[in-house]
């Protein structure tokens, strides 16, 4: 028996390694092994594909081109994957996701072009999956590129809105779908379409659609968008699997599609908004104007010094740290851990309350704190710790805003009304470390800052925390 006949078996084994890889991710101890098993399966699948008939038929040239392409891709992947800072992870994930989507779109184009070239009309099912793969892959590619730009700071992270935006987005999507239907009907012999032109037009419109989809979405909604684009690329790969009649691609793509879908749903739910609302409401479009430090009824915020904070923390028994995107931006996670270590050495109980959408991707805060070697059993989910805030002596809010706003509970007129929040306002004392009085992403005032028990410590999160650490060391 030659290798060729064994290829489907190897693909099956690879599919199993992917399931095992994802299964491994259900626990921190099995995760590394799982990831490596999946990587090994991937390597195996790629290796045997060199022996596949379709590939071998291209002759030696294909081996050269593929090897060169793989070398290029590997260098890009290793360089990108190794050099990127942990705080820049969300954009890196977006970038690699876009690469997969782009590849899936290209595979759809090439396979379709081949079938035209040969002159045989492709099967109806193949045409449907081709246009789906092309559209979803294209949207994912362009959307991920925009998400990358926003996260990297190349593009403004604010929601980008202009008059007639929804109409234009709808037109782009509409035109794309009409053309796609045209290709399918053409295949059925019902209408006549200039096939290559239609294909390129669909590809172009898919890219536009991806841009139009992500541009109006603001930074804080990125956890939803990244999960969604992840699901899209998975689906595009599954569609490419249908086109090529390759079950491995279908399984892998579908698994990712399922994972992306679950994460998207979790993230939307954590904001108490529907996916449609996230995509089309243009939340956070207002440019974060400075919020008044004084409320209409005369209440004002109370500014505290690092000494005050150090004293307050030093006499606490229970401290809950509430990290947000501001901690990531300032790269304050190491300083935060140093602070926690000092407090723990004094016998103070320190825990971290993680809101599901804190940061810019699902689980963002967990990864950052893990990078700073914070034990993961100290990281508590919102449901797990929310009841405990009332027993906390100090809630230390570092770069988080909207997820702590009590208005979400009480104020029906607030745009974030109904969003589950961390019960920071129930702690005995609240310290908020914040750059300035700028409003959070949602562009609304935070009642918490006017609460008499809240002290505001203004400054860069990393510097502010480091100063508190120094004060604590002095006192010790």
């Amino acid at each position, binding site marked *: 028996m030659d290798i060729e006949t064994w290829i489907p078996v190897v693909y099956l084994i690879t599919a199993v390694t992917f399931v095992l*890889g994802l299964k491994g991710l259900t626990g921190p101890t099995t995760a590394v092994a799982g990831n490596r098993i999946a990587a090994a399966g991937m390597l195996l699948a790629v290796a045997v594909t060199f022996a596949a008939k379709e590939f071998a038929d291209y002759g030696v040239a294909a081996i050269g081109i593929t090897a060169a392409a793989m070398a290029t891709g590997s260098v890009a*992947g290793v360089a990108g994957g190794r050099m990127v800072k942990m705080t820049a992870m969300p954009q890196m994930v977006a970038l690699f996701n876009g690469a997969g989507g782009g590849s899936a779109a290209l595979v759809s184009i090439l396979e379709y072009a081949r079938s035209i070239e040969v002159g045989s009309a492709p099967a109806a099912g193949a045409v449907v999956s081709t246009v789906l793969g092309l559209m979803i892959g294209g949207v994912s590619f362009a959307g991920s590129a925009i998400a990358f730009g926003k996260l990297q700071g190349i593009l403004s992270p604010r929601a980008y809105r202009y008059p007639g935006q929804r109409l234009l987005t709808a037109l782009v999507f509409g035109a794309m779908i009409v053309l796609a239907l045209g290709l399918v009907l053409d295949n059925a012999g019902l209408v006549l379409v200039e096939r290559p032109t239609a294909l390129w037009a669909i590809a172009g419109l898919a890219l536009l659609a991806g841009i139009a989809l992500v541009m109006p979405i603001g930074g804080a909604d990125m956890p939803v968008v990244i999960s969604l684009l992840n699901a899209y690329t998975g689906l595009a790969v599954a569609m490419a699997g249908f086109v090529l009649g390759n079950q491995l691609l279908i399984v892998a793509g*579908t698994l990712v599609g399922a994972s992306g879908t679950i994460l998207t749903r979790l993230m939307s739910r954590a904001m108490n908004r529907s996916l449609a609302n996230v995509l089309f409401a243009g939340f956070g479009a207002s440019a974060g104007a400075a919020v008044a430090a004084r409320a209409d009824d005369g209440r004002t915020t109370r500014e505290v010094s690092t000494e005050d904070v150090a004293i307050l923390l030093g006499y606490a028994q229970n401290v809950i740290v509430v990290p947000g995107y501001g901690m990531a931006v300032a790269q304050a996670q190491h300083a935060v851990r140093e602070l926690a270590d000092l407090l723990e050495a004094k016998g103070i109980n320190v825990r971290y309350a993680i809101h599901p959408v804190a940061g810019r991707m699902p689980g963002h805060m967990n990864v950052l704190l893990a990078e700073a070697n914070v034990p993961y059993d100290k990281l508590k989910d919102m449901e797990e710790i929310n009841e405990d805030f009332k027993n906390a002596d100090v809630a230390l809010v570092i770069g988080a805003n909207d997820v702590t706003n009590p208005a979400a509970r009480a104020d029906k007129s607030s745009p974030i009304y109904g969003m589950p929040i961390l019960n920071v306002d129930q702690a005995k004392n609240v310290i908020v470390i914040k750059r300035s009085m700028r409003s959070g992403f949602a562009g609304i005032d935070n009642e918490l800052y006017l609460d008499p028990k809240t002290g505001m410590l203004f400054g860069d999160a990393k510097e502010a925390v480091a100063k508190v650490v120094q004060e604590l060391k002095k006192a010790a």
Partner: protein
Amino acid sequence: MSGDLVLGAYVFILAAFVGLEVISKVPTTLHTPLMSGANAIHGIIVVGAMLVVLAVPGTLGTILGFLAVVLGTANVVGGFVVTDRMLAMFQQRPKRAAPPAQKK
């Protein structure tokens, strides 16, 4: 309706159930590695890219085929590297128990 397509549909639907079942058990802590790991897995598209790398003759066809493989490989390699780095951080726990204790 071709048999291939129906077979594909079976695989698609069953894989969707497996995916939903397995992934709904992933804890919040590991959501980022999950996304990044899933990201690497859809890099399997590189196999598809290889199968069509020279499917279309001519310069444009070759360039597109080349690009498909480049993007697919970057996706796989980058995805696994990033995931491995993230997971390594979740493993470092045992090493750290010492420092805070010494300060007492």
